[in-house]
């Protein structure tokens, strides 16, 4: 859940939405985040976690929690790829 907290903080900073609102909201809509605003957020997250998010990764993503799950999955995949390259 560290990822979710980080993403909530980044979202709050980037889109100027109070963290409390983001914690309460179950969807992007409830948080007042539209798809165009999310584009900025994706760029920020990619830079922060050093990952690349593909459009297919975002299918079914409707909340910051879903987004955090995607980021966790991509981070894990990147770590595995790095370890395999070292082995």
């Amino acid at each position, binding site marked *: 859940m560290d990822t979710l907290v980080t993403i909530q903080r980044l979202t709050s900073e980037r889109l100027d939405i109070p963290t409390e609102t983001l914690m309460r909201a179950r969807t*992007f*809509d409830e948080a007042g985040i*539209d*798809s*165009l605003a999310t*584009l900025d957020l*994706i760029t920020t997250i990619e830079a922060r976690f050093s990952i690349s*998010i593909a*459009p297919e990764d975002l*299918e079914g993503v409707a909340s910051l929690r879903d987004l955090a799950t995607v980021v966790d999955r991509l981070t894990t995949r990147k770590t595995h790829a790095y370890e395999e390259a070292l082995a």
Partner: protein
Amino acid sequence: MGIRATVIAKAYAAVDIAVAGAMPFAQKRFHQGWRACRALSGLRDAPSGPYFARALLASRWRCALLLRYALQLTRPQLRTFLDDRVTYEGAAYAQHVFSGSRPVILAAPHYGAAPIGFVAAVHRMSGRRTLNLFHDTRHLAPQIALLFDRGGVDATTLLDGLPGVLAASRALARNESLVMMPDAFDDITQTLALPFFGRMLRVAPGTAFFALRASAWVVPVFAAPGRQLGVHVTIGRPIDPLRFAGLDEPQAIFLLSRALFTSFEREIRRAPEHWYNWEGFPSVSTPVDPPGRLDDDAPLRLLRDKCETSPHLLQDVPELEMLVR
């Protein structure tokens, strides 16, 4: 050319007669033209009347026949059709845009011949073959996909929502072309209100947003069926987002969208029967109150009083003097 294509061509030639014959018999509620007229009856600045109803029905029939006809053609025949049966207007304006190094957004209102118009536009654009289209299902309708394939268009479908937005942004970053139809009103969560046909129309800001972010040219494209078998493609004057570079983003999005819908309105006024959204137009737009009387000079009197009480205003803005003296 096959027998079917020949029959469709004959039917196309007879559309005006068929529509005229259908008018006295068609039930008004089943007649697309009359339905549009009924929806627009309370609007001050919208087309109406039997001529419009008939022209609208003829346009719908022609578009349906055109699509069927184009689907009967082989790849070389379709190319010949695009060369011989498609006329272009305004293409010279956009030539430098199509051959330039910046991404392009083709923005089209909902016209029935739009798919053929996109194929024709790609045929006209040298070196640009990939079109990214927003679509509400994973795949294009098989017929449209077939048309694009035969027309030599590498069409990529973008999903709605977040994946589509990200994919569109990436496509523009790769200098590809994006096709958008900004007059879609099905599911708009964030909207702008723009003047359109004397009303304020709710529109999605996506086209302007992408154009500004990617410095992409916005090229209005209109594809109308001809009276003879064929399509007339009008390419509007390209809109350069760099014109709005000095403004903050919401302001720039508004002004670019306004420029685009002004271009749409100008073209739709020339031939209103081709626009598909007339029936829904009243429900997605709001009437604008008539302006105040021209002899109402209250704002001017207020300004004059302000200038008298604060003379430095005239020193700071010398042009005010022309208004208040």
